[in-house]
């Protein structure tokens, strides 16, 4: 695919001042010098107003004036510099979460400022109470505190007030309800005390609480953003685009969001089919493993249906895009997905479950205190003061920190081990899992085919075949190039679509392709198939020498056997639920020693199996990558997906894992269990704190100093307990960076040499 055929303008977004802006995921950024190279190189082009590379996210934002430049030249310049760029589909980007993060950060800054300055006055008052502060000075300090705390809380507390309001309107209660009541109550009581010239006010507690809570929220949000950004880059690198055929026959590469039903798209060999549709012209073999799990290739011709996510192997196809009406695979998957996601929303987070118990108890206790003191004949104003101080002392500071603090520490640990969480509450659900259900293709096995019997092959032949394979776009050709570690393509190589590649080397013709193309003997093919019944093969021939056959198979992930053993040792029941044929599934199950292996499962069957396990009282962790797994991933109690998974599966999984190893699955469960333990401990700490403090408050013995010490003391204990998770974890492996898949890098080298 050349850049000239891609309709880059469709990816650009107009800016308000009449320019254009394009955001690109850039591959091949390895060091800091790349920042300068790229920004300088692009910045020198005419019409470019700004080029800014974000080294953290590996994204380049380019602004230019419409007439003076065009996106095609930006991308060709980048390619000349040695970087391959992939545009983001503007229909898929969401700016809302970005805005939400900034808003939280602003609120946190305001709360932090207020907390520090109110603390300044509070410490003076506490010190003054012990020495000789005058009533007038104290009142002045209280008023100044109010002057800072009230506007700050009104601004910084909005995220909590809004969430609490939404919950109450829906007649539910969540963690934010007691938090909001606590903050508002504290501020109102303090204001009342200040107006009456009383010696106590609690502005410091209220804003300090807000600051800590916002810190927890922000860290949580940041974790989710990090996951999304990696996933978006991977999606862009895989170029989820379609080559649309215009009525005049020209072919332009456009983002998927700009393809409509009825359009015709061209699918070249080696590309993924990006739409559901009907073949109009052409014939080819299709690899549906990502969609159905079935590893055998299916032949298609005019009138046959093809599905998004499948891989076109041999020939070019023109596909008429069909509407996503009922009955298509994608629609079916989407329908199941919605139903499954709805079923899961009945799950309630640990913190909300505690809040549901906690809020009524606290509110009843405060009310009982108020009525009790009145019944004892106290002045109603004094009774109210004591009742509100019960509310304050029970204000769930430690409780609110108990869960987020652990989530943040655990998600950081998981990130270092290559697991990216979509949702903070996934940790709790991961810890509860007692059954792990694996998909086979692409999950237990590697997403890309790997060469078999590598030790039997002559290294010189492998190297020569690998160099030739660099010019092939066929998945097996790319796998061969990778196995041979080839990096210099042959300049004279030409691809014969559907057959193979050939090149003249030192006066001899080299060929790489199907067994037929290279004239391989039938008995040799049969012998190889007898050894590896599931293998696909590629033949290589040089001059008149006999052709060499290379067999490929989607092998197990390198550490799959160890990880499966570790999972079993951790007391988990293991299952394979695959869409593939029984033969390969049984072979894998035997290798791994998994007794329960289901083959030929459709998406609905997979859900049914999960449902059955659920009925038996099991909590299932589903690990899968295909389009056919997406509904099951959403339906399972908790789900993991490799980062190579299709977009829909990534979106329905609770967490993604990076790299070729299966180890992150085990790490995720282990870390989650440790984190769950720390969460429960933290909740107990909060409960014990309340058991001690509440009776004192009810009895009216709580002085501001005790309240402040008790509150910050319990918060610190809870935070330290969360940090304890990290002890002994210093040597954890670094996360694999968002490395582009190797074939892409090889292709870039190939293009650079050809240019």
């Amino acid at each position, binding site marked *: 695919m050349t850049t000239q055929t891609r309709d880059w303008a469709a990816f650009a977004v107009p800016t308000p001042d009449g320019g254009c802006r394009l955001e690109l995921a850039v591959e091949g950024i390895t060091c*800091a010098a790349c920042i*300068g190279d790229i920004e300088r190189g692009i910045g020198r082009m005419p019409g470019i107003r700004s080029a800014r590379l974000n080294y953290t996210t590996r994204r380049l934002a380019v602004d230019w004036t419409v007439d003076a430049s065009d996106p095609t*030249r930006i991308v060709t310049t980048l390619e000349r510099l040695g970087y391959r760029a992939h545009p983001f589909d503007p229909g898929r980007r969401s700016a809302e979460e970005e805005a939400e993060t900034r808003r939280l950060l602003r609120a946190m800054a305001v709360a932090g400022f207020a907390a520090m300055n109110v603390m300044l006055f509070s410490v003076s008052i506490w010190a003054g109470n012990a020495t000789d502060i005058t009533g007038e000075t104290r009142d002045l300090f209280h008023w100044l505190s109010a002057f800072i705390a009230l506007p700050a809380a009104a601004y910084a507390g909005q995220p909590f007030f809004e969430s609490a309001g939404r919950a109450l309107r829906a007649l539910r209660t969540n963690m934010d309800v007691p938090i909001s009541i606590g903050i508002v109550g504290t501020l109102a009581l303090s204001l009342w005390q200040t107006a009456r010239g009383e010696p106590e006010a609690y502005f410091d507690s209220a804003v300090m609480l807000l600051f800590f809570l916002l810190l927890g929220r922000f860290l949580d949000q940041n974790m989710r953003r990090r996951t999304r950004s990696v996933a978006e880059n991977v999606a862009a690198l895989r170029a989820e685009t379609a080559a649309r055929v215009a009525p005049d026959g020209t072919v332009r590469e456009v983002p998927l969001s700009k393809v409509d039903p009825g359009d015709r798209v061209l699918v070249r060999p080696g590309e993924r089919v990006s739409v559901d549709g009907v073949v109009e012209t052409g014939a080819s073999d299709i690899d549906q493993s990502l969609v159905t799990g079935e590893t055998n290739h299916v032949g298609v011709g005019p009138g046959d249906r093809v599905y998004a996510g499948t891989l076109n192997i041999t020939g070019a196809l023109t596909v008429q895009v069909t509407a996503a009406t009922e009955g298509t695979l994608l629609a079916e998957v989407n329908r199941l997905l919605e139903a499954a996601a709805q079923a899961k929303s009945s799950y309630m987070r640990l913190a909300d479950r505690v809040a549901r118990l906690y809020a009524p108890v606290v509110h009843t206790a405060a009310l009982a205190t108020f009525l009790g003191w009145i019944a004892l004949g106290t002045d109603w104003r004094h009774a109210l003061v004591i009742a509100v101080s019960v509310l304050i002392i029970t204000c769930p500071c430690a409780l609110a920190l108990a869960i987020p603090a652990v989530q943040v520490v655990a998600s950081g640990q998981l990130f270092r081990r290559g697991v990216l969480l979509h949702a903070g509450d996934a940790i709790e659900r991961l810890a509860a899992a007692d059954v792990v259900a694996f998909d086979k293709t692409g999950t237990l096995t590697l997403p890309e085919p790997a060469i078999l019997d590598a030790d039997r092959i002559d290294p010189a032949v492998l190297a020569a075949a690998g160099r030739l394979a660099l010019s092939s776009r066929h998945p097996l050709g790319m796998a061969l190039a990778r196995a041979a570690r080839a990096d210099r393509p042959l300049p004279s190589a030409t691809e014969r679509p559907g057959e193979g590649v050939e090149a003249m080397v030192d006066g001899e013709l080299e060929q790489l392709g199907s067994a037929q193309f290279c004239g391989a003997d039938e008995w040799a093919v049969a012998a190889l198939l007898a050894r590896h019944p599931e293998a696909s093969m590629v033949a290589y021939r040089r001059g008149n020498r006999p052709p060499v056959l290379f067999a490929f198979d989607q092998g197990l992930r390198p550490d799959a056997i160890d990880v499966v053993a570790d999972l079993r040792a951790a007391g988990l029941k293991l299952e394979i639920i695959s869409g593939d044929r029984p033969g390969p599934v049984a072979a894998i199950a035997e290798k791994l020693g998994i007794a329960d292996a289901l083959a030929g499962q459709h998406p609905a069957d997979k859900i049914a199996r999960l449902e059955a396990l659920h009925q038996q009282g099991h909590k299932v962790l589903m690990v899968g990558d295909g389009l056919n797994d997406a509904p099951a991933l959403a339906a399972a109690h908790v789900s993991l997906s490799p980062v190579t998974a299709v977009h829909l599966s990534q979106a329905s999984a609770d967490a993604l894992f990076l790299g070729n190893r299966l180890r992150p699955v085990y790490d995720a469960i282990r870390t989650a269990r440790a984190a769950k333990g720390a969460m429960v401990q933290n909740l107990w700490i909060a409960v014990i704190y309340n058991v001690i403090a509440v009776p004192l408050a009810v009895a009216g013995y709580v002085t501001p100093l005790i309240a402040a010490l008790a509150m910050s003391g319990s918060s610190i204990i809870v935070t330290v307990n969360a940090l304890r998770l990290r002890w002994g974890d210093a040597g954890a492996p670094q996360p694999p960076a968002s490395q582009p898949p190797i074939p892409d890098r090889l292709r870039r080298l190939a293009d650079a040499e050809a240019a």
Partner: protein
Amino acid sequence: MEVLVFLIPVALALGALGLVAFLWSLRSGQYDDLDGAKWRILNDDDVAAEREPQDNDPT
């Protein structure tokens, strides 16, 4: 105690200055690329631009 009359406003103003500075840095995107920032200090583009003549159009 009269010293409080101007010490308190000074203390608050200093704090507010920090807050404003933070909000400004947030708005101007200084937190968008934390990893890149540490490398950019090594980048002497601004000096190089004066020394070496501009390349021709790179296409």
